[in-house]
């Protein structure tokens, strides 16, 4: 055994935690090595010091004090248990208020929402009188098809354009 191995196993050897063959080797090394024998004496002295520390025993009335604390605890738990209820209530109230505000805004009349007058082009078909639209369509249906040849032939513009075209001038 080398001194380094002896030093490594010294604590366990003195504590009686080494297996027998290794313990015997330690004992033999300590017998022949003076410096390691000194280390062994130091370690045994240290162990004796630890053993000299008095055992303080159990603290007095520990269970009485502990049970008193346990009795105090439920009150505290009760307060903690209430906290989530308050927090949940507050969250629900806030959410309900927000929903109410959004709903009221959506229900407000359009005039209240638009300050500037809208241009005429923005008027949509939905705002035009439906009866008037039906009348316009029926009027248009009674008119001749402007793309038909006989209609075109009867048109003053058509005749003028044809003359220009035949004379080699620019078309319409």
């Amino acid at each position, binding site marked *: 055994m080398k001194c380094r191995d002896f030093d490594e196993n010294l604590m366990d050897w003195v504590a009686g935690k080494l297996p027998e063959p290794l313990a015997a080797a330690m004992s033999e090394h300590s017998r022949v090595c003076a410096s390691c024998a000194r280390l062994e004496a130091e370690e045994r002295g240290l162990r*004796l010091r630890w053993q*000299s*520390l008095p055992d303080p*025993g159990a*603290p007095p009335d*520990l*269970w009485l004090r502990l*049970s008193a604390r346990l009795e105090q*605890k439920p009150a505290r738990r009760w307060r903690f248990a209430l906290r989530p209820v308050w927090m949940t209530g507050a969250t629900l109230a806030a959410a309900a208020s927000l929903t109410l505000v959004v709903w009221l805004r959506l229900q407000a009349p359009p005039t209240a929402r638009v300050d500037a007058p809208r241009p005429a082009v923005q008027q949509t078909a939905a705002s035009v009188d439906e009866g008037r639209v039906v009348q316009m369509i029926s009027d248009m249906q009674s008119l001749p098809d402007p793309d038909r040849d006989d209609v075109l032939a009867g048109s003053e513009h058509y005749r003028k354009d044809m003359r220009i075209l035949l004379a080699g001038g620019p078309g319409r």
Partner: protein
Amino acid sequence: MQTSAVMELNNRVGAFELDSMARGHEQVYSDEDLLRYCARGETSALEELTRRYQAPLYRFLMRMMGSADDAEEAVLDVFMRVWQNAGRFQFRARVATWLYRIAVNIARDAHSRRKSRPQEAWIEERQLETLAVGSAEEEALHLLEREDQARRLQRALARLHPNDRLLLVLYYLEDRNYEEIQAITELSYTVLKTRLARARRRLRDILEADH
């Protein structure tokens, strides 16, 4: 009628005590059983667990914190935490290991809180004085010597870093094996061996300087 009587009894004494009656008082509950009862809110189970571990935990915390008052307060905190967290224990480690781990955490928290306190507060004279009380005359010299050695060791421990102190107390005083110390400190075997040897050297140096 019988059911209501049982329910009434159950409410009055708790399931743990009923079970104790059924098993007979000679039945020894394991720490794990006691912890399961604690998780169900059985204070009698906590009382039994306290009875088993109050002395070793107090001794351990006394050496770690150096003051009887601090150690008592810390032991109370340990069992309060056990009570509050019994339901979360996974039963992967031994209950004793868990208790010591809680104690280590409490001692560390206390140490970081009282860093500004003077080191003299660390030395607990009261318990050392009790050694001489009631001792026979012929043993007085021997006891005085022991007392002196204990005082020196206490002083040396007070000057060590808390991590060094923890390893030495677990190894020398609590006589824990490496597996248990590993479980409490969450150190690997190699790191534990190295740090323990280093802590021992530091303690030896302090003791030699104090001589």
